[in-house]
């Protein structure tokens, strides 16, 4: 049975966006991406392999990331993912959408009786 996701309501599209963001800083291998997400979110998101790997396959197929085999810090062979130009564009787009959405939701949540 697939292990249950410990992430709370992390939708497929959002996960894709977060992976792209992580790779925007530097190329990384699978485990490293998971670690980085956990670190930066201060433990809020613990994405496991069962969600990561399918996401990698999807993003790779869509040409947003590229895979390269390379050596890790411990001289082990691992698959490193790199953001492509298309990936960069998609990330910028997704970031814009996300920010617009969040702003709108925040406005609604903060609306008082007086605001139309």
């Amino acid at each position: 049975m697939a292990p249950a996701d410990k992430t709370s309501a992390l939708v497929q599209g959002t996960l894709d966006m977060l992976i792209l963001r992580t790779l925007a800083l530097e190329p990384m291998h699978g485990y490293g991406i998971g670690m980085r997400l956990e670190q930066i979110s201060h433990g809020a998101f613990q994405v496991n392999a069962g969600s990561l790997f399918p996401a990698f396959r999807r993003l790779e197929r869509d040409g947003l990331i590229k895979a390269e085999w390379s050596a890790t810090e411990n001289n082990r062979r691992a698959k490193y993912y790199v953001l492509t130009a298309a990936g960069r564009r998609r990330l910028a787009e997704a970031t814009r959408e996300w920010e617009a959405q969040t702003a709108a939701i925040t406005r609604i949540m903060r609306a008082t009786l007086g605001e139309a």
Partner: protein
Amino acid sequence: MRFRVARRALAGIRTLFHRDQVEQDLDEELRAYLDAAIERHMQAGLSREAATRAARIELGSTTAIAQRVREAGWESALESIWQDLRLATRGLRRSPGFALVAILTLALGIGANSAIFSVVNGLLLRALPVAAPEQLAMVSTRQSIDEGFPAGWNYSVWKQIHERPDVFGRSLSWTVFPQRFDLAQSGETDPVEGLFVSGNFFDELGLSMTIGRPFNAREDVLGSSDSQVAIISHGLWQRRFGGAADVVGRRITVERVPVEIVGVAPPEFFGAEVGRAFDIALPVGAAPIVRNEKEWGTPAGRSFLAIMVRLQPGQSMTSTTAALRSAQRRIIEGTLRANEIWGPFHENQVKDPFTLTPAATGTSELRRQYTRPLITILVIAAVVLLIACANVANLLLARAAARDRELSVRRALGATRWRLAQQMLLESLVLSLVGAAAGLLLAFWGSRTLVAQLSNWFDRVTLDVSLDWRVLIFTSFVAILTAILFGTAPALRASMANASAALTESLSHRGAGRSSHHFRGSLVMIQVALSVILLVAAGLFIRTFQRVAAVPLGFSSEHVLVVDVNATRAPVDPAALPDFYTRVTATVTSVAGVTHAAASLNTPVNHAATLVGDFNVLGRPPVPERERRLIANFVTDDWFATYGISIRQGRGFTAADTATAPPVIVVNEAFVRKFFPGQDPIGQVIAEIAYTPEWKTTPRTIVGVVNDSIDQSLRATAYPTVYQRLSQWSAVMPLMPVPAQISLSVRAGTGSPAQLSRGITTALTTIDRHLAFSFHPLADRVSAARQQERLVAVLSGFFGVLALSLAAVGLYGITSYAVARRRAEIGIRMALGAQRRDVVQLALSHTLSWSAAGVMLGVIVAAGVTRYLAALLFGVSPLDAVTFVSALLLLAIVAALATLVPARRAATVDPMLVLRSE
């Protein structure tokens, strides 16, 4: 967006081909992930073993991850479908009994539907095999369309439309009514079916001859000797001339007139009328010669032509219709004979507006007659298919119970619910498609048999019911729909498989959930209900046929032989024809074995247009137009005796009623009821209605009353009929020449009337060797008049029996299954002392209650639905009690038998065996 689809498609294909490489890569990547996790844990201070354990827990099941990654691509769905298909076929091969029953059931259900759809396709949907059929339209009138009859035009109208292609479009024509041509050189006729066609017929339809050439304009000139040419059909060419290459230029005789063959039509072309095939086509110009009637070509001649126009691109049907209507008065005026005066008849022709109807599928008399019955039978076949689906669904559910363990294991290994359902659905699809393929074979044979049943003495029905794309699509669609219908329940059941059940031992009580039991019971209920409906429908149609067959004819049909005589070529003066016919009749009467013989214009159920008349009773107020329609016939003296029609009042015709004596008529009882209710009609005088001052009407005196008899339709109640003496024709019908065709009715004293044909042949050829004649036992014609009802009764009966058998099989199956499931319970009960009877009752109780519910449901729905069949019924109410009760009884008996057999087997269970095996 488009790039994404293409990229994904390519990636999927690459994965399919380099599967091993891709799998290896993934394995390596997962291993690296694990290593990195171990590293991290060790850095956090755990020992290597603890770190490894923690890392493995964190990673989870690599198999599951690998599966999820695989599913991220579309190609995995394809692979899973392929795997499941192979699994399904293997599974079916392992249980051949089940597979055979299921496939046979489906083949019958789907095949029946495809067979009937093939006929519907050929009759209603298929376009004519000509060039650009969508451009074709028939010239008709609103009244013809409303009354459902083909519109016929005379030669003058045709010429006027044909000569203005700029206004009306290019036009072509052919004879509206089927023509019979006699190819014999003498004596008994050698009839073939044919058409007169306009000279441009084949060219305008874009047909190229197999050999030879089409007609040309010179050959279409009325009455010219150039018009004595013919084009024969491909079929006739093969049958009669053996496909000889030199048939072009050969001379044959058509109606005793020499004619030269100039071409052979293409094989797939059968004419412009669906359901008929032509053997020989002659130009319209040859009609006056071949039929020996000068009237054919004259403006007021018969309305014998159907006119079709080909709309040019850019020419719309509405604009052409408007053009026709605006020219209508002028066109009708152009049909006036010399000295003819415009009368109400012509006014009617102008008032009934020209109307164009699309004719891509040609015209068809067969279509008019059989569309409704065919659609009804198609619905019945669909209902039978539903019953078949319910059967197969029950079979699959019963079989599924045995596969629960397998499914649980698959579930435990990580298969999603959808995957399990997919497997079941694919199995259903395999069953359905194989059943559909077998069904197509059945349909091939069945549709041809059905078409053969439509033919009779008068109509040789030719219908192309070959498999075309429409039938294939229909069959595939039905197969898929069927698979969904019967496969959904097992698929749902499979998807509910419990993973933990794989680990427990006692599966013997599995699948006994209340809901699944209810579901299977309701399937049985639906089957029984549908069977009731079909049995009721079959019963109604069978009783309708019985009623139609029992209609009192008013004459005896068993002893009468009808001889249709064509005297066109006989060298007799048209004015002397009545005497000639009387002489012929006398000669035939003297043939051995003949007790009576008579000549007449019309004979019963002869499929010819009935002569009607418009009469008024002298000295009485005029009868409204619709009321005064009568049937009229001209007969010789012995006619009533020949047909066994009794004279109720007054007298028949005698030799005293000569051509110069006062005209007399004999009427039937319906006439008396209508015009002289409760009075004595003898001595009353009636006269035809004159439409123009020149029209002489001769008053006629009623001298006798005979009993009612059938004219053409067995369903119509008796029509007021007047009989007049043949010899008095010219006195009462001065404007119409005596026809050159007459029917002799001959009564045989003993034995079959068909045996008289040889003696009559000799007699007729002795009188005049130019006479052409054909023999038709009256009994055959009467039988043909019942053909449609008989066909519907046979088909619905067949389907009713099929439905009943399917329901019986279903009931048998579910009872056996219920007994098998409850073996333990039965064994215990018997060990505790239960009687056989109690055990049987126990086994039957649930099945019978579901069946009873089904019967009630069926009766209620049938009562509501049969009203839609009312148009097809005759003499039977849609709620006929006898039919309903019989259907119920039949179903009850069959259901009882089907459930009793397995139930009694339940009582033979050995309690010791059962207890030991638990």
